[in-house]
């Protein structure tokens, strides 16, 4: 099938996603990833800590772990859809960062993303595809924040690239 042989124009892909996102907004709420990831964190922590997790108020007052939280399944769906797309287009193969410095950057980057999402209550997806488009005041604060952060991140990255 042509769809699995050629790279799709991202403008077309994102226009289609936007239309679907409007339907999702009408049914449950706009596309978001951070909330689902937080709930997964809670569920994983509960698996390892059991009742000990009750001692951390965050998991009672902000995100009591529930497996039937719809946002979790958006993330799992993205993983599944990407896996199917990669297999059908013969683009699935194991890739591994080679240098220790790459592993370090990814680790720091991942930590900052997790901390940032929880501090803001939103992730980059909600910023652009939810809040910003709902014209929520938070959307503008978040967009300013992520632009400033991406700029600083790019400066750091350039410095590292230049050695």
């Amino acid at each position, binding site marked *: 099938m042509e769809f699995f042989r050629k790279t799709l124009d991202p403008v077309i892909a994102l226009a289609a996603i936007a239309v679907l996102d409007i339907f999702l907004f009408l049914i449950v709420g706009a596309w978001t990833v951070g909330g689902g990831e937080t709930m997964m964190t809670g569920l994983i922590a509960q698996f390892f800590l059991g009742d000990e997790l009750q001692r951390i108020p965050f998991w009672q007052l902000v995100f009591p772990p529930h497996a039937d939280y*719809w946002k979790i399944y958006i993330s799992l769906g993205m993983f599944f*859809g990407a896996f199917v797309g990669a297999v059908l287009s013969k683009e699935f193969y194991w890739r591994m960062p080679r240098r220790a410095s790459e592993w370090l950057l990814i680790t720091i980057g991942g930590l900052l993303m997790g901390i940032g999402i929880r501090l803001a209550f939103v992730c980059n997806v909600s910023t652009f595809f939810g809040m910003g488009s709902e*014209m929520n005041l938070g959307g503008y604060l978040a967009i300013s924040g992520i632009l400033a952060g991406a700029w600083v991140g790019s400066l750091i990255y350039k410095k590292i690239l230049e050695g």
Partner: protein
Amino acid sequence: MSPVAECLVAFLFGSIVGLLVQRSRFCNTAALRDAIMFKTYRNTKALLVAMMILSVGFTGFMTVGAGHPMSFDVGLNTFAGLFLFGIGMVLAGACTVSTWVKAGEGNIGAAWALLFTFVGMFLFSLVWSWNYWPPAPASMTGEPNLEALQLGFANARTLQDKLGIPAVVFGLIQSAVLFAIYRAILRRERAQQAQHEMHQKEAAETPVEAAKAQAA
């Protein structure tokens, strides 16, 4: 709608998104990073088009009170959180979407980033349980809370309620602004293309000098 049906709808939506993002190589990180670092806009244009459609769609339904807009208080934490996120996504080379999508393609680095996003969230839950900032959604009032450095809640619908102007009007204005940015990018791309062609033409006309310049 029952929670199970909600989860099924979410999974279906996610699957289609994952497929489309995988096939198009869209990346939100690249949409910002490439525009800043390399002045290339492949992903930026896609992001803008999606936001144009969403702004009209969301505010259109919000005008008649339909849909489920996000509602919680925002403030300094919103800016600061996304600032940290912005640095993190450039360092990790992936955002929340591309970590899932790349992990689905067999990228162990993306799965590692995802794992540490979870770790970051857990660490934050410990800090939150000590200082309780930003306030939990249950205790938010929608009004400015200066002590907690929060401005409250406002969106296109609250503007409609306050000013009597339909929310969709604001959505159309936002889309027009986004379209102006989109057109400015197209103009810039055309200028880059013209410059590139001119350089190529010059190099073809004076091959010796071009070779010298390249050697230098």
